């Protein structure tokens, strides 16, 4: 390990250091404000040293880690999202100001960062476990709340099962190939493609990842966990955790040479199609906004998977570009939507039923406009980044001539429109109930407004972002 390698790892080191520092600070003095600011400063510092890593990229650090443009891009995304979640946490936890949430947030972020830069099964598993284990207490953080505890336990159990599947899959692949690092796996991929051990291994791995990504039929935990977790934590699960896992899947797929398996692509295509349809239909039936967003995120993961399958039949660069763009759009949009829910909620009372949003436009016009922009982006309406994401999905799947999948996306989008717009209509309804006074959240609202502006800006002028993603995609190919 050289000094340069340490510099390349600086963002990870900063976040790890910050988590230790916050923990020590809590031990010395229980002060939520201090913990929050330390966390935020740590994250901003990590973002500030990212350009340094980018300059050193691509840098292979030991056998485990690869810091390339791809990793740097996703690390930037994850840390920015985590910083916003920290802001949301600060506004959300009013009754019980407990500092531990920030430590957990930092370690979970670290897990996500490790995932997107891992180049080896060992680090893959390590990152995933750091992320998941930090998430269990975060989900159950409202200890007085039954739903929150239930969600925490549920996530614990299912996450444990999926980790076991994943580990077993890795073991089988190792048994067949004798290697654990992705690039070396690619070298032997052709040789072991017909090996039943490796095939079962890959399928088990995909099942494990399917749990984390909440793809049908591994989606059963999603709605309950989304609903039970505190709103900022929901935002974190929906965005950071899923994006990191998907980013890893793409790297494994391309670097590990798995994209050559055609049967595998068919299986994934089916999972994607079913996720799109089931997610959208189930979202249609919800009256709880958090549950609705849970099911809609299942559908969105289906869209990405379709882009993923389409990309892997074409060329790997388009795969990383289209999936990367969709993940970016997905992360920003869900962060905004769940962020608004979180700003409206507090740990004593969640603002999750659709009825509560009746007439929001007349009570909280700015938050309502921000939520509307986010919902339109989720629905894939032009002028928002979500449309460009959906455009990528269409472009990739049409280019690959996957007509049944295209049809699924059309049907799914049609259904999606209905329930997203329904929320907007509810917000526009006129019910003059007494408005609940919101405590001032000085930083959160401007941050969310900025996010909404970014959504619209990137939807109207996507050129620059597309260029960034092309560079990122090239790093992987």
């Amino acid at each position: 390990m050289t000094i340069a390698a340490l510099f390349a790892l600086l963002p990870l080191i900063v976040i790890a250091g910050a988590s230790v520092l916050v923990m020590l600070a809590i031990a010395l003095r229980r002060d939520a404000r201090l913990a929050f600011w330390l966390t935020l400063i740590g994250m901003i510092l990590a973002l500030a040293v990212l350009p340094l890593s980018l300059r050193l990229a691509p840098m292979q650090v030991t056998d485990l880690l690869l810091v390339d443009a791809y990793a740097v891009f996703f690390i930037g995304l994850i840390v920015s999202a985590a910083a916003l979640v920290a802001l949301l946490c600060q506004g959300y936890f009013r009754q019980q100001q407990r500092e531990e949430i920030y430590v957990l947030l930092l370690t979970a972020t670290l897990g996500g960062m490790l995932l997107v830069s891992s180049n080896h099964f060992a680090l893959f598993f390590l990152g995933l476990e750091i992320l998941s284990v930090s998430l269990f207490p975060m989900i159950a953080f409202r200890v007085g709340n039954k739903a929150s505890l239930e969600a925490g336990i549920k996530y614990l159990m299912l996450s444990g099962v999926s980790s076991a599947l994943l580990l077993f899959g890795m073991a089988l692949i190792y048994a067949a190939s004798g290697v654990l690092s992705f690039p070396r796996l690619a070298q032997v991929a052709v040789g072991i493609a017909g090996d039943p051990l490796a095939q079962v291994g890959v399928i088990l791995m995909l099942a494990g990842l399917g749990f984390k990504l909440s793809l049908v039929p591994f989606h059963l935990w999603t709605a309950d966990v989304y609903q039970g977790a505190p709103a900022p934590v929901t935002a974190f699960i929906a965005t950071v955790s899923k994006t990191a896992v998907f980013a890893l899947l793409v790297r494994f797929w391309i670097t590990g040479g798995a994209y050559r398996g055609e049967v595998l692509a068919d299986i994934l295509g089916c999972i994607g199609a079913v996720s799109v349809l089931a997610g959208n239909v189930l979202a249609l039936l919800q009256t709880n906004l958090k549950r609705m967003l849970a099911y809609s995120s299942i559908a969105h993961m289906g869209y990405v998977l379709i882009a993923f399958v389409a990309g892997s039949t074409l060329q790997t660069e388009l795969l990383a570009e289209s999936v990367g763009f969709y993940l970016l759009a997905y992360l920003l949009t869900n962060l905004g939507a769940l962020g608004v829910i979180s700003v409206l909620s507090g740990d004593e009372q969640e603002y999750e039923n659709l009825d509560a949003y009746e007439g929001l436009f007349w009570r909280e016009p700015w938050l309502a406009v921000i939520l509307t922009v986010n919902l339109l982006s989720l629905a894939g309406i032009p002028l928002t980044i979500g449309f460009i994401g959906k455009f990528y999905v269409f472009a990739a799947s049409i280019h690959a001539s996957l007509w049944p999948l295209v049809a699924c996306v059309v049907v799914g989008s049609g259904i999606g429109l209905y329930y997203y717009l329904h929320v907007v209509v509810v917000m526009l309804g006129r019910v003059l109930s007494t408005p609940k006074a919101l405590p001032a959240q000085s930083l959160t609202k401007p941050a969310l407004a900025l996010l909404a502006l970014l959504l619209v800006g990137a939807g109207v002028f996507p050129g620059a972002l597309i260029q960034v993603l092309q560079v990122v995609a090239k790093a992987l190919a």
Partner: protein
Amino acid sequence: MILFWLIAVPLLGGGVAWWVERVFGKGSRAVALTALVVEALLVLSLRPDASMQDAWMAQLAWNWIPRFGIGFHLGLDGLSFLLISLTVLLGFMAVGCSWTEIDEQRGLFHFNLLWTLAGVIGVFLALDLFLFFFFWEVMLIPMYFLISLWGHENRAYAAMKFFIFTQVGGLLMLIAILALVFLHRQSSGVLSFDYLQLLGNQLNPEAARWIMLGFFIAFVVKLPSVPFHTWLPDAHTQAPTGGSVLLAGVLLKTGAYGLVRFVLPLFPQAAREFAPVAMALGAISILYAAKLAFAQSDFKRLIAYTSVSHMGFVLVGVFALNTWALQGAVMTMLAHGISAAALFMLAGALQQRLHTRELGAMGGFWTQAPRMGAIGLLFSVAALGMPGLGNFVGEFLVLLGGFRTSVPMTVLAAFGLTLAPIYALQVVQRVFHGPPVENVPADFGLRELGLMLVLVAATLWMGLYPQALLRLSGATISDFTQTLAAQGSPP
């Protein structure tokens, strides 16, 4: 640059109108009117010159998303000029007829109204298929809000139905666009969404047929034609008057415009093969919607069905694939825009006064409201195709051209001219004649009368001297028919 401002002015005007109303609590109507006046001046400043050789009067091309070969490419020819003029004129009508009707959230209303107009104008100008799709959606969302916020009793259902129909149609079009672009790249090596580049595409007939179908369905849903028309009666009935005026007057025309601008020139061969089916759909629309119109007891619903019937003529005209019929289709688009807008304004005025749209609750209004009666009669006979008024010219040309392509379909379509008087005169009979009901509305005021007189003048002009308009669209139409003749004939 003028083309850019044509789109930017209503967008900006909408924003300002909303802001002004929020800050001062009034003034959004004045802002909306000002924006429309500026827009009208811009349109007039383009001063069409019918003697020009090049069909394009103005073009504008900027880079937008070079990764996919997408450009911000706008172009104006005679056809778009006519339709944009209609859009601006009806924009004035929509603001004028909502003057007293809308009293809640007036700023937001005018914001949505102007953004719809901007989207429609963008659709008429876009020469990049991605940009076209973009505007196609931009006009949809504010219209959705117009219906769902200021509509009548069943507005949420109607707005949702409208949105989902057009959106799913739009997605089919997006797929068709992408398929066209990727196939074009395979054959030429250039990834481009530009209309002028895609014009000379060398698709194989099988692919062209499917792609054309994608475009066709999207446009026919919007038009609408049987069997995709079911959203329209609901949307029209529930929309506020200003929304109905725009919907019937302009939004339906975007479907017809798409057929003329994209389906025919991009897929001449496939369009020719498909023409009999399309003409049959048009003829069925004419007759079926006319019959349904006759059976309605809701005034706005009745007018909505007559719109379907008239748009059937447009479909027949477009797919007759010759100059006369195409010119007729364009004339029908313009004339129907005027007459349908006027009838919806009448229905809106009646509803504002009587709080009902039921024809059963009306009758004998002529004595108390002679201005309303006279204008209602005029536009009813315009709708039934009385010579001397706009609709007659369009329908006559459509039938004339259609006869040369398909005699049976044209004969069928011509029966529409016998059915139209039945429903049109029945409206006059039930609303204005007969024994007066108890609740008789006040007559048109000066504002309403003024608006109506503008529309009367427009329809008279179209009926008596259509040549000025025909000349404007002539260059474009003859370009299309030349393409059709060159490429569309069977090999």
